[in-house]
């Protein structure tokens, strides 16, 4: 058989060849926004590097919705793509990245687990995927954190996002952003989408458990990925990424992922803030729409 390098044929079959040879290197760090994803990525960065964290140099591998991957892997300008092309090309790009990588790729993703309206296939490619870690947090606290992140009022935040079945980051049509459209749905829809799908193994991690019993929670998540680290190293990574330390780092050197110039990314990080800061009407509204998964994950 001839070497593919010497006999490379540029047609549709080539792209499927890439698919078929893909290694399953991708571990998705999935979450509804403001649920501990950045905290977990910080933890992973220290765990993998075993040194003090630089928030602006995370050692994880970007975000699924980033245009950068499609641009660099497929050598094209992603601003000019149709929705159909974006869906198809994201799968091709991440399959290629996985096939090329000699190590695990930890890729952040805020998209709900949804299916293409064009070909019916999952938007998140299964072939390069090893598993997903799904981070979730009480939607009542998410509302407050997301309100700070977007700079919108609490009312607007839960109306636009947490109780909105059509909630998304960015519009469906391609925009000047560095990222593509990300479907979110309501908080409950988002959690359920990752829970009920059967293509990708998922390990669920509650933000509240990361706070209350960090060692057991982080250790179990790392075990689920198949990576092996000593207890001491896990403990070191936890200690280096305590909320207060991350907050201090952001205040000292800034954090490029902060979207709200009037506030900080690492804002309060508390569990149960909603009891003091949401009105009874707001609580009931958010609970009513998100009841199924709030019950399922102990937030009821």
């Amino acid at each position, binding site marked *: 058989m001839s070497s*593919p*390098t*010497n*006999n*490379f*044929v*540029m*047609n*549709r079959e*080539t*792209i499927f060849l*890439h698919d078929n040879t893909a290694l399953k290197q991708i571990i998705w760090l999935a979450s509804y926004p403001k649920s501990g994803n950045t905290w977990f990525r910080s933890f992973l960065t220290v765990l993998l590097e075993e040194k003090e964290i630089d928030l602006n140099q995370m050692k994880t591998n970007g975000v699924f919705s980033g*245009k950068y991957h499609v*641009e*660099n*892997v*497929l*050598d*094209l*300008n992603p*601003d*000019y793509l*149709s929705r159909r092309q974006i869906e*198809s090309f994201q799968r*091709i*790009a991440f399959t*290629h990245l996985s096939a090329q990588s000699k190590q695990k790729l930890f890729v952040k993703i805020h998209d709900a687990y949804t299916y293409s309206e064009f070909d019916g296939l999952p938007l998140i490619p299964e072939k390069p995927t090893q598993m997903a870690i799904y981070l979730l947090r009480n939607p009542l606290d998410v509302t407050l954190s997301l309100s700070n992140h977007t700079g919108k009022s609490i009312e607007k935040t839960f109306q636009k996002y947490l109780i909105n079945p059509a909630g998304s980051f960015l519009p469906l*049509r*391609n*925009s*000047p*952003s*560095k990222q593509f459209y990300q479907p979110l749905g309501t908080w409950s829809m988002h959690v359920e989408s990752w829970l009920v799908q059967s293509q990708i193994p998922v390990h669920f991690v509650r933000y509240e458990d990361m706070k209350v019993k960090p060692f057991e929670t982080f250790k179990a998540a790392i075990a689920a990925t198949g990576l092996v680290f000593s207890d001491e190293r896990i403990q070191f990574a936890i200690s280096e990424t305590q909320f207060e330390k991350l907050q201090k780092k952001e205040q000292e050197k*800034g954090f*490029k992922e902060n*979207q709200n*110039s009037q506030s900080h990314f690492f804002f309060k990080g508390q569990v149960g803030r909603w009891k003091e800061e949401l009105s009874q009407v707001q609580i009931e509204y958010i609970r009513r729409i998100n009841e199924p998964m709030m019950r399922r994950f102990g937030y009821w």
Partner: protein
Amino acid sequence: MSYKYLAYGIPVISTIPLPAFVEWPDEIAAKPIFVSERIVPESLQTPALEEKPFSTFNENELLYLVPDVARFYVRNGEEITIESLGGNWSEILLYFYANCMAAVLFQRNLIPFHLSGVFLNESQVLLFAAPSRIGKSTTSVMLQQKGYAPFTDDTAILRVEEGKCFAKASYPMIRLWQNSIDEQTILKESTKQSIRTDIEIDKYEFTFHHQFVTEKVEVVGIVFLEAEGNEIRIKKNKPNIGIQYLDNNIYRKQWLNGMKKQFLQFEQLTGIINTVPTWIATRPKNELTFGRFADAIEKQIIEKIKNYEFAH
């Protein structure tokens, strides 16, 4: 029938209309690029040095496939073949202007950079370097609004000759998102054209053929644009910083190794950075501050360059 154009100062003879380019019926001594619509070869003639999902290439050949749109073959810096796979031609030509032209330039030992720019006077330009979506085009347009003529919008080639850096512009087309079009007043809404005619995109193109300069022009400064933080900041670079930024703004930088252009890269970057002053200009992320940004660039960079030129 064949159409004759100029792009990056190079003659292009094409069987396909290439409306972004400047028509150029005159004879030019330089070796032309021939563009035609034909069946594209199934594979490279010599072994590939890099294989990616859509691109396969070596030093002298590039094959590029966009599923359901088109296949492209670029060879020896002088031949570009396009085979439609049913794509709309407005889309097919986007890949031609970007990838085929970049490949043909690399094959001719010319490096394209992500650059927009404006004329400071009839023979000198200030360039803005940044990856896509940072605001090169909008910054350039806001300066055009202040009276500076457009030079190029997305790419240009640079070359150092006798101690000076010169640029050749790509072609006279500015592409802007609608939110940037809304921010300015010199480009008329009525003259904007769709980038792709088969789907709706909020980004549009404007041509400036009547103002386009095809000759090489002296570069008096390069400003690297960034969007982060909460304020507008401008800082002059030391060469060791400037060279890193310039390197990051090589167009299709990811092709350099597979096209064996590492030495050319080193030679070009060091030559340019030792010849031209560079700055980093940062504007706030997530805020439309291009008007104030252009004011700051004019005051802190352009006026200083003009004062320096006047004093010397």
